[in-house]
């Protein structure tokens, strides 16, 4: 039988606020345990949560970016469950009336555009962290993360393969970083994903029973976890079994999903409106402010790069994959005044290649846009050849000098003075009468020998095009 996979994702993005969603404690990552957990975060009696305006603004920003309905009026609710990293015995979240309603996002899959629905996005607080090892049979609790604002972005079950799920997740990741509402750091848990996965016979309308894969922290694992879960479900059904609705954990070491011990009543959260929090009003003033702040979105920027700089789809996608890289490219283009082709090549191939090789983020680049532009100018005005430029680029990477200083210091200036080149050519011709004879008798291949000798004699500084032209004239 032919099976169809159905996937919906719940993405948790930590909002890049300075303070918690309901307290004025810092959200900075990596602090000593419990030094950023205040009375509100600990759920001590008598405290009241006060909502962070920046968290609200960021959620609204996301809503506008996915063309969603942003609520006029939004309500927080308590989601009740017991776990030691949740000190209050409930998580403040949203059930009815979330901040962001129905929206959508387009992904590209095998050259085709597919629209993925976003059901909703709501604000909630993150839990603390449990450390299960080394405490004489006890569990250690760090509540620094408790109360960090999360935006939970829930998709429609619109994805039909692990590949589509990854494309959607990447798109959301790119978007939240563009909007500067989440740093997107998956290693630190700033961006996490749960996947709802089910299968159904192809053509069937109703959905199969789904399993929820929890907390998958990399793009690679999302793809692998979904694929292995789909395989498990199909095998199970084909051998006469049925899929049960449950939460499963992906074990990357063994590439398998495992049922989490299903706590009875686990899903009976008994939501109710939180009496500690009043309803939130999203005012027209806030909407207008956020709208004015909205940056050029990735898809629009990509389209503009294709039109304005004549880039193909792939190059434009690469160069607009982050706001910083796109800005870097545009600074290089503007500062150098060189052709879009030269700039695109250097930024997307040489520069990105060097960054990847050094395992650096764009923010950590040793060569800024201005210095790279300085190099490209010298390629464009023929001061140096493309080959020499690579050598200059390596020096740029390793020093603080400008391209001009490096060219000067290392004597890399291309010889464009035709008199100097002519002198070298004359000498080479005089020194190699046998080869001249061969060439004149019709052995065209010998021409390469002459070019090589001239380039060697000029220490690679002669302009190859010029050398070719002059040699042809001389050897007539």
């Amino acid at each position, binding site marked *: 039988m032919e099976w169809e996979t159905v996937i919906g994702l719940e993405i948790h993005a930590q909002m890049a606020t300075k*303070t918690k969603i309901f307290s004025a404690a810092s959200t900075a990552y990596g602090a*000593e345990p419990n030094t950023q957990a205040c009375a509100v975060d600990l759920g001590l009696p008598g405290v009241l949560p006060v*909502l962070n305006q920046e968290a609200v603004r960021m959620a609204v920003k996301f809503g506008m970016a996915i063309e969603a309905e942003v609520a006029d009026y939004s309500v927080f609710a308590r989601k009740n469950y017991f776990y030691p990293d949740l000190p209050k015995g409930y998580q403040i979240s949203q059930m009815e009336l979330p901040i962001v309603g129905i929206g959508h996002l387009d992904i590209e899959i095998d050259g085709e555009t597919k629209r993925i629905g976003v059901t909703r996005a709501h604000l909630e607080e993150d839990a603390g962290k449990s450390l299960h090892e080394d405490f004489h049979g006890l569990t250690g*609790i760090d509540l620094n993360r408790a109360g960090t604002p999360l935006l939970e972005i829930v998709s429609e079950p619109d994805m039909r393969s692990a590949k589509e799920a990854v494309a959607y997740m990447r798109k959301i990741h790119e978007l939240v970083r563009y909007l500067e509402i989440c740093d997107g750091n998956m290693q630190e848990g700033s961006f996490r994903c749960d996947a709802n996965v089910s299968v159904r016979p192809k053509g069937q309308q109703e959905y199969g029973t789904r399993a929820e894969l929890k907390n998958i922290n990399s793009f690679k694992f999302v793809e692998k976890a979904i694929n292995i879960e789909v395989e498990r479900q199909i095998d199970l059904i084909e051998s006469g079994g049925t899929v049960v609705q449950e939460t499963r954990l992906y074990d990357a070491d063994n590439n398998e999903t495992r049922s989490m011990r299903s706590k009875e*009543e686990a899903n009976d959260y008994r939501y109710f409106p939180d009496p500690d929090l009043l309803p939130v009003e999203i005012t027209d003033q806030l909407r207008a402010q956020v709208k004015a702040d909205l940056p050029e979105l990735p898809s629009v920027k990509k389209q503009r790069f294709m039109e304005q700089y004549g880039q193909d789809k792939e190059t434009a996608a690469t160069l607009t994959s982050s706001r910083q890289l796109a800005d870097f490219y545009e600074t290089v283009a503007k500062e150098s005044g060189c052709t879009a082709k030269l700039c695109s090549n250097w930024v997307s191939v040489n520069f990105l290649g060097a960054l990847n090789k050094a395992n650096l983020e764009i923010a950590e680049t040793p060569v800024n846009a201005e210095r790279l532009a300085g190099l490209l100018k010298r390629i464009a005005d023929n001061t140096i050849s493309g080959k020499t430029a690579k050598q200059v680029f390596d020096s740029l990477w390793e020093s603080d000098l400008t391209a001009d200083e490096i060219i000067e210091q290392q004597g890399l200036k291309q010889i464009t003075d035709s008199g100097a080149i002519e002198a070298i050519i004359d000498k080479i011709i005089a020194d190699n009468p046998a080869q001249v004879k061969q060439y004149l008798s019709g052995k065209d291949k010998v021409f390469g020998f002459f070019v090589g000798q001239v380039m060697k004699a000029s220490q690679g500084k002669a302009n190859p095009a010029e050398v070719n032209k002059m040699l042809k004239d001389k050897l007539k």
Partner: protein
Amino acid sequence: MSLTADEVKKIAHLARLGIDETDIDAYASDLSNMLDLMTQMGETNTDEIQPMAHPMDQMQRLRPDVVTEKNQREHFQSIAPQTEAGLYLVPKVLD
């Protein structure tokens, strides 16, 4: 509507409340009465009325995103039953 003894036990378990077996019948009866009252209220026509999220007719005040809390770990942990290396220690819970 009347709740069974099992339902009372389940509700108590969800809220992590220890209740006395001998009180279950009384809880069942009290809770059932409350549900009856709700059913009665539910009969009122509220088609034109926006659900109330809070009894106070006000909107949430928002707080500027500025850190004002200081580290008071020692203070908070002085009342914790057990701590180590800055962590609160609790009985082991497994995922």
